[in-house]
């Protein structure tokens, strides 16, 4: 029912009208248009917050189902409910500035995420060491050499600076500023063109991500 409604021409018409209002309001400085555009954007923020709440409820429903199945994975669901209720109680009741809330941030969230980041570091080093064994090719060799030079070029070698390698006019700096910037510019241009085409397709109803 809902899917058929979202796929109907009515939903496409709504998308077209709102999209055109926001887009024209970006280029045309007219008060009624700006007011309408601001109103639509506020509704967007509100609906996004509601969607976040729905996501939270959906996550709870999934874990609640796992708890009822009493499988091995139920222990993770139990941990989720424990952490969710704790965060809800601490953040909602005590507030962000409470010492207990800060302790949760300082001793739970940040250490866990940092340790995961360290694991990523070890895994990347390990993968680079075995790159030439698993896939021996010119691109692998180029990638490996680029990584090594980037690392070395970002740090001083124990206080020793190699003249043509490091420094503002060195090879590493040129690689970063010229080659790296050129590549990123190309990526950004591609992203911009893709964004424009995607916006046009959504406005014309050719792409309907809201109906999928």
């Amino acid at each position, binding site marked *: 029912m809902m899917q058929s409604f979202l796929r109907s021409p009515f939903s496409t018409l709504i998308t077209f009208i709102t999209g055109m209002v926001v887009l024209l309001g970006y280029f045309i400085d007219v008060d009624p248009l700006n007011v309408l555009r*601001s109103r639509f*954007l*506020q509704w*967007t*923020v509100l609906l*996004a*917050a509601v969607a*976040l709440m729905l996501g939270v409820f959906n996550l709870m429903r999934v874990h609640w189902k796992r708890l009822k199945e009493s499988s091995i994975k139920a222990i993770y669901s139990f941990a989720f409910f424990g952490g969710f209720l704790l965060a809800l109680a601490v953040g909602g009741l005590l*507030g*962000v*500035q409470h010492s207990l*809330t*800060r302790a949760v*941030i*300082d001793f739970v*969230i*940040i*250490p866990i*995420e*940092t340790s*995961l*980041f*360290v694991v990523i*570091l*070890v895994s990347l*080093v*390990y993968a*680079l*060491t*075995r*790159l*030439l*064994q*698993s*896939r*021996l*090719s*010119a*691109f*692998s060799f180029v990638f*490996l050499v680029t990584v*090594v030079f980037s*690392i*070395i070029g*970002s*740090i*001083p*070698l*124990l*206080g020793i600076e190699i003249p043509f390698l490091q*420094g*503002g006019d060195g090879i590493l700096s040129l690689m*970063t500023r010229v080659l*790296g*910037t050129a*590549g*990123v*510019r190309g990526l*950004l241009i591609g*992203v911009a063109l893709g964004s424009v085409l995607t916006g046009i397709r959504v406005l014309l109803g050719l792409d309907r991500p809201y109906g999928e």
Partner: protein
Amino acid sequence: MEAQRCPMCGQANPPHLEVCQYCQARLKPLWVEPSEGSGSAVEDGIARSKAPLEPDEPLVPEWLRTDRMQIDEGASFNAEELGQEEPLFPEEPLDTDDFLGGMFSDEPLGDQGEDVPEWLRSLREDSAAAERPLQSAKSADQDLPIPFWLDFDEGAAEEVPPQSPSAIEKVPPFKEQPFEDIDIDSAIFPSEQEAGEKLTSEEPRAVSPFETFEPFLFTEQPSQLVEDSTSEPEAAEVSSKEGKTSPPAAEGDWMSEIPPWLETLPGEEWMESETAEKEIPPEFLQGAVPPFVETDEELSEIEFPAWLDQVERSIEPELDTVIESLTPPAVERLTTMEEEKGEVPKERPEALLEEEDAVEMVGPLHGLRGVLPAEPLVAEPKKPSKALSELLLTDKQRAQAELFLRMIEEEGKPQPIPPSRRAKPHLLWRVLIFLVLFAAAAVGLVLRPFSSAPQELSVGVFDAMQAVNQLPAEAVVFLVVDIEGSDFAEMLATTNALLDQMMIKGAFFVVVSANQTGALQADRLLREVSRLNGHKVQPSSGWLNLGYLPGGVAGMQAFAQSLPQILPNTVDGEAAWQDKRLQNIRSLADFPLVIVITEDSTRARQWIEQLKGQVSEARLVFAVSAQVEPVLRPYYEANPRHIQSVLAGIRDGAIYETQSARPGWAMQLWDAYTLTALVAAGLIILGALVYFLIGLLVGRKPPVEGKTS
């Protein structure tokens, strides 16, 4: 009783059946009593159905033409004239044993019911009692006759007086064969005496059941015979009696004239000799072949007239000449050659001759010779051939079918998963890498300084320092903090000197985050900077946390347009824009400096795009992770710039601290960072060489690019 044969299929059937049990044909035909006018009507129908006599039928004899004309004129025949005609068949006594004889009687048999069974008598009495009131109302002579099917009785049939004309005219049904009891020769061609007797007989005749169906040739033949057998005066008398049946040929009638081409035919002498007796049929009809000749002996017994032999002898040479002219010599030679080779039998086998000359013994074609045996060949049920029940396959097709079956069977079987060619994880090497990196970081933190501080002033750091230095005292700075916990240490080192400088100037921070945990990270970041640099900035006095900004890009756009409407309250629930330090702040353009702190390149790009036009480029500073710097550099190096400055990574933070002469967290991490990065690079180089050599020594061919393992 004997078994009765089906007239259609000839199979024997039990006598009590009325329908053939083989072909469902009716064994005992139902005869409906013909009315008085039916005979003439049928005869008229026959006459009308015949094609009109056309002048291009020169071979029709004169007598036949006369008869056809009579039939054409016979529409005015009535029943009385027909009744006075000479009976076709010799009168036979009515077979009283035949129970059907009484079936067609018109006389009511109610009074003749001595042999009527009890059930029928009671039924009649009941019906009579029921109809008595009605009969009283009717006249006495209007007795309703009992239906013939109810009046059927053998005894009654026996008592039917033979003088009853209605009973006499009833058609006696035949029992077995239609012409079994009829002497066709004598019936059709009676002798002169019999003809005279029949002609003078005034007795009512028994109408033959085939009277209305007999060909007119047979029906009219007796009158012709009579004329033939009598002299001309007698013939004239007879013709005067019959009147319309044999009218004299009118003079000048074109039908009576012989066409010229017919005069040239052989036998014209005969025709000329017979022209004087136009009304007399030719003699050859007296010895005509009977319609049913079963054997050659019967055929040979027939004496053909002499004139026919004469015609045959005269025509035979001419026919031979014509046949020889029609047969090409080449065909004749081929036929002779085939006969010599034995490919064509010179004489047909006797069995085939017998089969062809066999006389049909059953069915409607009974008595005819040379009937094509259609039924055994066409209608006889046959078993389906073996080829239809068994599939004929060639060896190649069979092999392909077997291969296809094997493929299907193999598809259903579980296939063992092939061993992955991926290199097995070396746990020891992983642990060794971790231990080496951890040791390098620990040594860098404990045993510092290992390296000198970065002395080079980058462009980004310089621009950032200028933006901070231009801030007025106690300025309100807008902070966007979109960082995760994993990057907190790096972002703290990057922004430590920047935030420290602003805290020194007494800046007030308004914090917002597009990340779910960004608000908490921002609060912790400010607290850590304050703690590391010795400031006593508290949340309420030093910053205002607006919390999480939902909606992604749309939320950024909405927030950039109208701050108070999107996020009116702080994370503590207080009215954010009621603070006295924010009274003059209604949009992003009102902030003297906007700093975006993020480690996500996508989020950094989105903020640049959504803040453009709302914030002046000179007031926009980005403090990002080192991995985001390449993405922001095009915006920073553009002309004109989209952003004022970029601080990227620990290196820029350390430079900022060095330039501001306030070593802090970045400088504390700098030695550990450089040593760990150096060790990591060494491990990569060493490990790559070792594994490359191992691969060469083991002889395992590394997979070629493009072919995944």
